[in-house]
């Protein structure tokens, strides 16, 4: 059987991708619909950009977006540091005390339902406030800590798997030539695995930016993130501004993804294990 002509597989692919994209595309299309009902096309007044203008001037959404941005950036940067340390440690050090625990702690958050993680972290913050007075109330700090805890697990996985294909001979050669282990890490290992670390940063950023459940549990008054605002709006039904938000999000993500994947394809030619 020549696979390529398998009608079955091609049909499945078509169906699968249609399933994935029809909702996304419908949101984009209806963001230009003048009608407030969103899904009933108002042919007389559409397409229109009025909801785009409206969104850009919506203070509630803009404030929430700003908070989300701050949290996401701090979270991504912090998670990358923690996750790289853990990923490198797990990949390079075959045996150390607590390895099993660290491994378990970095894989559990990946699958655990967020309601559990969110609840437990909130209770921790409350208890800590009782015992030592910090954190005083919930807000951006507690939210960021919450995000970092589960984001770093994702970064660990990304870094760890990159380290698995990293040729250890490169590190040994550097040591052989006189570089101490710390120097080797910064001058050799880090530059070569940098694309993985960058994608870890982007992953942590996105996880934080889109997070609803953990944010809801760990946030406080005045620190509503964008997803929290969106959620409260869509609980009541459809809203054209949300369609606009979705369209903008998709556009930005698509652009970044294409850019990053082109850059990564170039970087992948360096530092691959197989010597040609």
């Amino acid at each position, binding site marked *: 059987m020549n696979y390529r002509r398998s009608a079955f597989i091609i049909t499945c692919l078509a169906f699968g991708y249609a399933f994935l994209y029809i909702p996304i595309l419908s949101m984009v299309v209806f963001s230009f619909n003048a009608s407030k009902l969103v899904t009933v096309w108002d042919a007389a007044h559409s397409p229109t950009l009025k909801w785009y203008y409206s969104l850009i001037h919506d203070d509630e959404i803009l404030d929430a977006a700003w908070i989300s941005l701050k949290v996401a950036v701090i979270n991504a940067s912090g998670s990358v540091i923690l996750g790289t340390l853990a990923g490198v440690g797990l990949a390079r050090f075959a045996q150390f005390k607590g390895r099993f625990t660290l491994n378990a702690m970095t894989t559990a958050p990946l699958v655990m339902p967020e309601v559990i993680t969110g609840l437990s972290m909130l209770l921790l913050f409350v208890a800590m406030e009782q015992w030592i007075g910090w954190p005083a109330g919930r807000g951006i700090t507690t939210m960021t800590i919450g995000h970092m805890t589960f984001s770093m697990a994702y970064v660990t996985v990304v870094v760890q798997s990159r380290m698995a294909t990293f040729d250890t001979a490169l590190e040994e050669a550097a*040591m052989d*030539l006189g570089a101490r282990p710390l120097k080797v890490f910064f001058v050799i290992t880090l530059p*070569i695995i940098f694309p993985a670390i960058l994608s870890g940063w982007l992953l942590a950023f996105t996880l934080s930016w889109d997070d609803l459940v953990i944010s809801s549990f760990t946030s406080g008054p005045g620190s509503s993130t964008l997803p929290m605002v969106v959620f409260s709006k869509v609980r009541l039904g459809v809203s054209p501004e949300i369609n606009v938000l979705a369209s903008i999000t998709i556009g930005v993500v698509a652009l970044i993804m294409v850019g990053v994947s082109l850059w990564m394809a170039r970087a992948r030619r*360096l530092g691959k294990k197989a010597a040609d």
Partner: protein
Amino acid sequence: MANAGEAAKAAPWRDPGARAYVQIERVSKSFGDFKAVDDVSLKIYQGEIFCLLGASGCGKTTLLRMLGGFETPTSGRILIDGEDMSGVPPYERPVNMMFQSYALFPHMSVEQNVAFGLKQDGVAKGEIAERVGTMLDLVKLRGFEKRKPHQLSGGQRQRVALARSLVKRPKLLLLDEPLGALDKKLREHTQFELIGLQDKLGVTFLVVTHDQEEAMTLASRIGVMDHGEIVQAGTPAEIYEFPSSRFVADFVGSVNIFEGKLLDDEPEYVRIGSEELGGTIYVSHGISAAPEAVVWAAIRPEKIFMSTAAPHGAGSDNVVRGAVQDIAYLGDLSIYLVKLPTGKVVRVTQPNTSRHAEAITWEQQVYLSWDASSPVVVTR
């Protein structure tokens, strides 16, 4: 051809007073239950090219890595130029290594790769540039300074790796299968280049390889390894002509081995009766073996004469009859597999000295004979 440096020609290993540059004293390495290196002791002298030769899994790479500082011996110690290397990490040893995969830093240029070691030592910028330049001249890569590894061919990458590991003038250079990734023609060419470089710089080389041709060409001395032990160490000629065991005889080059018992055991000669052979072997030197011991006579294929007529002046020693079973024509020589009446197949090689010689063909009855000095008797 010079397959020994100036220093090696003086054969310092024969001088009991000579000080070894690298001393490996009773070194063992175990990984769990598995003993990779078993009680190895070795002395390597300055200016030598020493080859560790063995099949994969024999422990040669582990031994090499212990010299480089990437593995710690389970027992025993290593001294380089008199200094004990126990606990000394790779970045503090006067040893450099050329890796099998070359391990060139992909994000650095040729220049930066070669300069890396000098930078770690804090050498002045001007001096770095000078030394890197000289080195690149030596390996004939002038003009390639700004290229990145992925823009180089396999042979060029190898030369960068070599330059990088030599620029620091290490006391000992370790080479892990240096020619394995090259094709045949390039390999031959590089072998002689390596020897020339070593001669010029006077660096002591330790090469690890499974390729006996490589070992024979490069080495001033070879250490044959099997199951973590060095079974024999000596010059290529010694290893080839005077193997100390069946393993070594069989490992380096091809050989015919006949099992037998001592019939006559005299100081100047021995006579061995071999059922495998279906005859007797007369060897013109004495050996030391227990009486009634089983011994083996090893005869190299090129030392066996093959003729259609019975050889002159033949006693009954050192001659047998057989039938040609197989012939492989290799251009410069031909390999003949001759089956003896006992069933044993003997390998004979003959140079094709004449273009129109009367060819010996399949099934032909031939006489095989050899000099009394040709067989090597081994007792294990």
